[in-house]
């Protein structure tokens, strides 16, 4: 088992990089799509249900099937993998953005409006800062999902740590499967930990201090 790590160190690092790269781009695009959409949804309550239903339906399409569907349209390689992962990352971020925006106290929003904030100012100065911790925890959840699902991207030739697992399955080499799985899991844990730190730093200071006058 150890030999897997010692003999392939350089390659493992390369594939880890590839894996991270695919995941990162997918989450980035997912965030850029889902956060504005979530904000929009929280403002126009009518279509909210429809959109959330569609995205949660997308979520239930089996991952391998979704990847396979991509092939006729986009061929193989990194692009279809990133698009598929991106679709998966949407729902948690969308959901949390919506919930986060809804959780902002009505009275605080009304106060902002009464002081003469424009809708854009209210969003930037009040709603987003207060919703940010919840949005960030959606991004973190998505990141962990996407990193583990990115393993499957290897199936359509996108590379990444999934290569070890699929090779292992084809060649009946247990240490490839286990080794690949260990690295993916570690990666997910590390990213989760790092993002949890980011999430905490996003909680506005005024909400972290509760009572007590020592600051």
């Amino acid at each position, binding site marked *: 088992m150890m030999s897997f790590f010692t003999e392939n160190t350089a390659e493992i690092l390369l594939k880890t990089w590839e894996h991270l790269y695919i995941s990162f781009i997918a989450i980035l695009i997912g965030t850029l799509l889902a956060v504005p959409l979530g904000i929009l949804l929280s403002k126009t309550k009518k279509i909210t249900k429809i959109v959330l239903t569609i995205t949660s339906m997308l979520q239930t399409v089996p991952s391998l099937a979704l990847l396979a569907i991509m092939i006729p349209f986009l061929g193989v390689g990194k692009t279809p993998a990133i698009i598929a992962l991106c679709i998966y990352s949407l729902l948690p971020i969308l959901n949390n953005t919506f919930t986060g925006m809804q959780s902002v106290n009505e009275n*605080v929003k009304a*106060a*902002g409006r009464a*002081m*003469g*904030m424009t809708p854009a100012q209210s969003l930037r100065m009040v709603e987003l800062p207060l919703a940010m911790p919840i949005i960030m925890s959606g991004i973190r959840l998505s990141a962990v999902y996407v990193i583990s699902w990115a393993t499957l991207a290897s199936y359509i030739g996108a590379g990444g740590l999934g290569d070890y697992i699929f090779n292992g399955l084809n060649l009946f080499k247990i240490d490839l499967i286990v080794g690949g799985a260990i690295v993916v899991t570690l990666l997910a844990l590390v990213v989760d930990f790092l993002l949890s730190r980011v999430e905490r730093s996003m909680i506005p200071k*005024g909400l972290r201090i509760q009572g007590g006058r020592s600051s």
Partner: protein
Amino acid sequence: MLHIEKLKKVYRGGKIAVDDLTLDIQKGEFIAFIGTSGSGKTTALRMLNRMVEPTSGTVTINGKDMMKINPVTLRRSIGYVIQQIGLMPHMTIRDNITLVPRLLQWQKEKSEATARHLISLVNLPESYLDYYPSQLSGGQQQRIGVIRALAAEQDIILMDEPFGALDPITRDTLQDLIKELQRNLNKTIIFVTHDMDEAIKLADKIAIMHEGKLIQFDTPDNILANPINNFVKEFIGSHRLIQQKPNFKTVDEVMIKAISITIERSLDEAIRLMVKSRVDTLFVTDGDNRLLGYLNVESLTGDARSKKSVSEVYIKDIVYMKTGSKLQDSVRRILKRNLNNIPVVDNQNRLIGLITRANIVDIVYETIWGDEEQELKDS
């Protein structure tokens, strides 16, 4: 300066929240909207800064049709104290106070100076500017909510139950504070409350609302003397109607002479004066008879025995009444704060008299039994 004509709000679903509201408000007036829950007070108030768009009717501000002013500009020019405080939890007290100045892109130095000035007006230390709302008590937060509405030097301030959910003493203090601010800064304040005592104490004119309609709009004295119908009579409450007589009396009519001592005197002299006049409190004044504080028996015991002069031990924190105030207000203050007496000062803060609990007993006695005695004599 504010002319409201046939203002009406029908909410979606057909609820008529405000119906044909017509009234005029002059500059510098303190107006209280009062009424049962759901009578349309908040809706009426919010139509004045277009937080709620009127269904019909007009509001004219300084001769200008409000509907022609951009709502964002309008709101930045009118102070608003929202029901339940509504401070921004993620902003420091400084940023909360200077919210409107920042929206108006004032110079940083000017905003900062405003924040310092305003926080001193409500007797909080400047160090609080760096705190967050969650670090302040309810009463302190409420004070910030009030000064936030003054920060951009707005002439008109709307307040929606700004002192709800406060203990009576804090409430009383804040009421005094806002009344003083309003007088000194000559602000026009429109105030929503469902507390009749608060309305009588603060307002120049009271607007009584019921089911969206304005029932009576007049000065507190006129409303107490001539309630327009049974609804208003019931709303005021019979206990207040009985109090009518002392209502019209001012503190000047019943106050007695206050025993005072000037600040540079020695404690020995103070004690001798107390014994001689048979009082337990001396009011401390400066050479011009201006009230500085007081001295009582307790302040002469303990530590104080090593001190020599009045200036070292007198207590600066003192509650007083201005000349011309209603007697009823002094009664309320004495009872609420559990004082034994309350000094009266003139406009230059010179001590001119004293209201004591014994005074009040006399007045109450006169009000309740006076008529009967008169009748006995007559018959």
